[in-house]
């Protein structure tokens, strides 16, 4: 404390701004510098320490404890644990001395604050380690200056700076000086062999709060004077509001107000139950002129596109074309053709959509679960015609995201309602609202064709017909691009009034099921081993002239060999049937083998083997959770989930008529990560897409049935 006064710093602390080459990072130091050099680090409750609030990554207490702000939103993908691990590794502090807190939404100080695309760790890998390394070097430089020695004579062990002479000093003591120093640049980072934290099994940083029921999630957020809003939205897509009668609603105990905005009606109430009851009591008239779309209608539209010519007039865009597929098909002995279909799927995050907003003349406060804080804050600013500087957004932990929380529609509703009623409000979706007012995984059909000449594959053509949306431009450069001389991908869509969007592993979550089921069928057709066929095609890609191929053939073959070995593929136990699939997406290579048994005529997945190459595994515990979760989610999506529409109205409303995978359908899962020193890639999504195909191929092995539409369970009822 004395030192602070001598140096003229306020006790409130000091914010050190550092512009790093890696991209505008900040390091904030909080420095209470009272501890003596050799004061042992005591076990203390980190939450009880005095850290100042800065919008940056690192704060250090006088005890030498470190607070690390995790910049990205946490949806269960584990970044709140794994991102701070990257900083702590290079900072060289013991994990036990780290307190992790959720960073604020702050575009001045943080980058890439979103959750999506399995990109968090990949994008943070260099910058966050640089952040830790920079802080460490500045602390060393400060100690060296105090001791009048060369910084190169100092090293750090567990947050203690040690000089070759044996002198020691804790981080907490030199933070003031450190904050005044030049920002070092061009620092080298640790070699993987020197990692102390990366690669360790680190438990979820929020575990204690989760298992004791502490308020963490958006729905747990409360403040004085807050009211609740439940919104009645058009029951069918395409409907518009004609009028409504709210006298019964207004008589409901606890209902405070009823307002309409656009085609929606908000019931404002003292509590959720009052709002729910008030909503039921509303009478409404809807105009259904444009609420015409049913599942049969969608199927007819998509089949018409697949059966029609590959022309612009029929809505097609060519995504990639190599060689001459048409000629290859003309020359072929045989063309194998199959159409694969997925229905719409809701996200069904366990925490229904919700958001808090408090719009005042001074500012707009937003609190809640959101995967895209920056986009959402900007949209709220635009909606309310406010300066972005007036928007304050705080991210809560999310009860799942899976893509649904990319779309801040619920935050915009909250902002609009708060603006209208002049009160802080939390918009809460009931489960029925959540399932029927979604941004669904769109229904899609793939028509895949392959030509065979002299028992060799000569051409491959994929057409995608989707509702409203199509595959993103990277996908045509995944496998099997480069494997076929003649290769073509074309896409078309039907513009629907049903809202669609990203759903965990967007597009690939079904593209993989279709493609990898098709390759199994081709192997059968050619009478070759399905694994051998994949490996030959992947090997072809190595000599392809195209530089646009996105996957690495050797890494894909690596996971294939690994899973084949671990699963003893081809030699299942009696009563078991195996299916294989491999896939690359979100920068990660995966191969999976599913084993099923038939129980009373139904396929039950008993075991899944997964070999996965995501480069360095930052947190094996979290990584295993992500891969397991992806596999189970993928099985659930392939086996059970289906959302149908009649006249624009979703036919599933709650879990009684939308089937989710549950415990008794959960297989044993065995995961093998490839040992690697390559920079890490994402894990939230890549394990999901291939598993549906592995299951489908196992079902074929068991039953001889080649299933071409999900959910598979429909074929067994």
């Amino acid at each position: 404390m004395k030192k602070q006064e001598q140096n003229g710093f306020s006790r409130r602390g000091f914010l050190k701004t550092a512009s790093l080459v890696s991209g505008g990072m900040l390091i904030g130091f909080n420095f209470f510098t009272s501890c003596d050099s050799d004061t042992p680090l005591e076990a203390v409750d980190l939450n009880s320490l005095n850290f100042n609030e800065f919008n940056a990554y690192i704060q250090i207490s006088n005890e030498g404890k470190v607070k690390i702000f995790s910049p990205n939103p946490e949806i269960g993908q584990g970044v709140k644990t794994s991102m701070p691990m990257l900083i702590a590794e290079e900072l060289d502090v013991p994990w036990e001395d780290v307190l992790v807190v959720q960073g604020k939404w702050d575009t001045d100080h943080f980058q890439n604050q979103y959750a999506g695309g399995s990109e968090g760790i990949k994008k943070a890998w260099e910058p966050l380690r640089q952040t830790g390394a920079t802080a460490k070097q500045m602390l060393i430089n400060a100690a060296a200056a105090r001791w009048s020695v060369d910084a190169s004579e100092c090293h750090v062990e567990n947050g203690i700076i040690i000089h070759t002479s044996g002198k020691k000093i804790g981080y907490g003591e030199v933070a003031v000086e450190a904050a005044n120093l030049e920002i070092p640049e061009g620092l080298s980072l640790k070699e993987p062999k020197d990692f102390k934290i990366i690669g360790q099994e680190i438990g979820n940083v929020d575990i204690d709060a989760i298992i004791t029921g502490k308020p963490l999630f958006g729905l747990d957020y409360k403040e004085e004077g807050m009211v609740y809003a439940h919104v009645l939205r058009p029951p069918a897509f395409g409907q518009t509001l004609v009028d409504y009668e709210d006298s019964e609603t207004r008589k409901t105990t606890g209902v405070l107000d009823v307002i309409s905005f656009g085609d929606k009606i908000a019931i404002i109430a003292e509590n959720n139950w009052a709002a729910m009851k008030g909503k039921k009591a509303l009478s409404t008239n809807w105009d259904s002129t444009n609420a015409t779309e049913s599942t049969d209608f969608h199927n007819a539209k998509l089949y018409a596109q697949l059966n029609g010519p590959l022309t612009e007039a029929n809505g097609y865009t060519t995504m990639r074309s190599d060689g001459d597929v048409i000629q290859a098909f003309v020359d072929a002995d045989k063309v194998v053709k199959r159409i694969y279909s997925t229905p719409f799927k809701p996200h069904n995050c366990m925490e229904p959509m919700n958001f808090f907003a408090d719009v005042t003349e001074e500012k707009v406060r937003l609190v809640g679960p959101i995967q895209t804080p920056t986009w959402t804050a900007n949209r709220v600013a635009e909606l309310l015609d406010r300066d972005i500087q007036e928007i304050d957004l705080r991210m809560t932990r999310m009860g799942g995201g899976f893509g649904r929380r990319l779309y801040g529609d619920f935050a915009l509703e909250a902002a609009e309602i708060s603006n209208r009623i002049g009160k802080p409000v939390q918009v809460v979706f009931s489960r029925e609202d959540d399932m029927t007012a979604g941004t669904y995984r769109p229904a899609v059909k793939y028509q895949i064709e392959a030509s065979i000449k002299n028992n060799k594959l000569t051409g491959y053509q994929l057409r995608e017909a989707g509702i409203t949306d199509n595959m993103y431009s990277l996908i045509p450069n995944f496998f099997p691009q480069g494997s076929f001389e003649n290769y073509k991908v074309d896409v078309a869509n039907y513009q629907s009034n049903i809202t669609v969007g990203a759903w965990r592993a967007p597009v690939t979550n079904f593209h993989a099921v279709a493609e990898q089921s098709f390759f199994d069928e081709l192997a059968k057709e050619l009478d070759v081993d399905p694994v051998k066929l994949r490996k030959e095609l992947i090997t072809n890609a190595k000599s392809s002239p195209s530089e646009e191929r996105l996957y690495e053939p050797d890494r894909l073959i690596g996971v294939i060999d690994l899973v084949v070995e671990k699963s003893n593929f081809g030699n299942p136990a009696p009563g078991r049937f195996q299916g294989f699939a491999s896939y690359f997406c979100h920068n990660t290579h995966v191969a999976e083998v599913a084993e099923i048994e038939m129980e009373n005529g139904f396929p039950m997945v008993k075991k899944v083997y997964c070999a996965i190459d995501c480069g360095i595994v930052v947190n094996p515990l979290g990584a295993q959770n992500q891969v397991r979760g992806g596999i189970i989610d993928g099985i659930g999506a392939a086996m059970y989930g289906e959302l149908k529409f009649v006249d624009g109205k979703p036919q599933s409303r709650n879990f009684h008529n939308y089937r989710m995978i549950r415990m008794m359908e959960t297989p044993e899962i065995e995961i093998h990560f490839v040992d690697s020193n390559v920079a890490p890639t994402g894990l939230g999504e890549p394990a999901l897409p291939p598993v549906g195909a592995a299951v489908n191929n196992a079902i074929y092995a068991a039953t001889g049935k080649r299933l071409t539409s999900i959910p598979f369970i429909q074929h067994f009822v």
Partner: protein
Amino acid sequence: MASYSISVNGKAHTVTADADTPLLWVLRDHLNYVGTKYGCGIGQCGACTVHIDGNATRSCSINVAELGEKSVVTIEGLAPNGDHPVQKAWKEVDVPQCGYCQAGQIMTAASFLEKNPSPSTSEIRQAMHGNICRCGAYNGIEKAVKLAAKSQ
């Protein structure tokens, strides 16, 4: 609206609410026990599971008037220091991903193990089948229930 005396986690509370108010919303909105989660409101997902007189019960499916003299235990009251064997096992295994459904999972598991302290794998899977986890943490849940059974 009527006044109800209810016991939650050993404490007596007086709540003024409509008779049809589900216990879930009484806990969350009136008494601020937000550890009990809203998932579906129709008893299908298990996120709102609490103990009523020791039995795992969906708090969305019983209303405040029906509760009577029965005592309620929520995740906040399962163990004074969050050290119930099931909670400890959950931490040891690092079960949660997003974590939202976990209070319901833990309350279901704790009540189940109370009645069946040495369950078979198949009994565990049946007992936990009613609780949905969208993150797919089921393998961890199964493992943690086994671990808790062993440590009890």
